[in-house]
């Protein structure tokens, strides 16, 4: 009979964490920033079909870095949780805090379960409030912890460097164009410090816009509107951008 090697629990957990972190680091980073009228999600994503950001509920958005099939699974679980809760009780009873807790439970259980490999994902759950003070951003690392973030957050491969860059430059009350430009600048910095250009076509951008008249505040930004926001001066406000989007796309729905 062979005796199994003893592995200390600390070592086992450290190995699992290392495995998950490496998986996440292979994915591209994304950032989530607060701006005057809401929360903006920006990431580099060459695919038009596989989204990194999506709508969970009226005021709640979802962003994920890491393995696509794993976070897609979590995303659909989140949509189900939110829709079921909103149907059973009321639309106001679906909150980012509740959703983040569910995600933390799921991720934590998977992380510490011996039979399963840990999920190689890092999530952000954001909820836009009536005012900037009411905004909530939660970051959920692979191990099931929850980090309550303010202002800006970065997840994915190069997250530490990017969040350092954002922390220095992000301020409250930025316009959408300003926040977007800052996000793109932060994403275009490589690990070795050099900069590269990310063309608008490779960007995935979405906002939770509190000025939107509809109940559902999530909206994707792309095409000409994105190009204009990136080029134009910081003068353009989000509400103008929204009006432009409506006329331009003819009520195009994500």
């Amino acid at each position, binding site marked *: 009979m062979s005796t199994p090697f003893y592995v200390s629990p600390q070592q086992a957990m450290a190995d699992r964490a290392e495995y998950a972190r490496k998986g996440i680091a292979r994915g591209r980073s994304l950032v989530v920033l607060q701006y005057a009228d809401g929360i903006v999600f920006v990431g580099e994503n060459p695919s038009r079909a596989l989204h990194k950001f999506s709508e969970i509920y009226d005021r709640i958005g979802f962003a994920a870095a890491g393995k696509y099939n794993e976070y897609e699974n979590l995303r659909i679980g989140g949509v189900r949780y939110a829709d079921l809760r909103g149907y*059973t009780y009321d639309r106001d009873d679906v909150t980012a805090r509740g959703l983040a807790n569910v995600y933390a439970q799921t991720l934590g259980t998977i992380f510490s379960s011996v039979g399963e490999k840990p999920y190689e994902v890092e999530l952000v759950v954001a909820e836009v409030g009536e005012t900037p003070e009411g905004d909530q951003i939660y970051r959920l690392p692979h191990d099931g912890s929850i980090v309550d973030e303010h202002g800006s957050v970065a997840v994915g491969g190069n997250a530490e460097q990017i969040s350092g860059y954002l922390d220095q430059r992000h301020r409250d009350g930025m316009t959408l164009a300003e926040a977007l430009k800052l996000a793109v600048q932060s994403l275009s910095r490589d690990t070795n410090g050099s900069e590269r250009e990310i063309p608008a076509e490779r960007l995935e951008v979405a906002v939770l816009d509190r000025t939107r008249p509809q109940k559902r505040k999530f909206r994707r930004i792309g095409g000409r509107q994105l190009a204009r926001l990136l080029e134009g001066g910081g003068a353009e406000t989000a509400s103008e951008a929204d009006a432009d989007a*409506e006329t331009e796309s003819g*009520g195009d729905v994500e």
Partner: protein
Amino acid sequence: MDFLSEHQPELLPGKRTLPPVQGAIEAPHGTTIVAVTFPGGVVLAGDRRATMGNVIAQRDIEKVFPADEYSAVGIAGTAGLAVEMVKLFQLELEHFEKVEGAQLSLEGKANRLSTMIRSNLGMAMQGLAVVPLFAGFDVDRDKGRIFSYDVTGGRSEEQGYAATGSGSIFARGAMKKLFRNDLSEAEATTLVVQALYDAADDDSATGGPDVARRIYPIVTVITEDGYRRLSEDEASDIARSVLERRLEQPDGPRAALL
């Protein structure tokens, strides 16, 4: 709603059975819903009355709901069940859109509603029928479309105009005489208010515009810009101008004889 039926089947309507009862069950019923298409969209409107037997159960009930960005449902029949059905229908459309990342086609939505009505057949046999009218803007074909249903879930697409509920016979008669293919949006909204007025004129279960309490029909417009409900002021303007003309001509506008 496969997910819901697996996890929380008790939340789904249609699974319930009623204990055998004597006679009809007394519950508030919604009455008249009308819809008219015009080039570029469709108008869906409903009166505000709910009745329970010969009693007016509610004067200001809302019976027209947005199903999603590009469609709306107007409900006639048992109010409680109908409202729940609409709620579930809204949920399904939104859920599908979020999970799949694309909207259902208008046909797909209409078919889904059909299945939901059919699942209520048992209740309908006991007098708790739900018969909605579904209208939406078809983004693929670029036009407004109307679908009507019967209690068994039978679906039929209507050309031009349609009505459901107790006052629908009178409303349909009015619309038949007033409808044209080249209506503008403003004309279409006036037309539905005229039709509802005629329905209220001859059907005791349909409510007319209540000027004293400021209760006017709900009028919604769906175009390529999406769903829009006319504001209180807009609806009252239309209702008042219709009422004004009716003071001189109680039977409303006269159609040409030949």
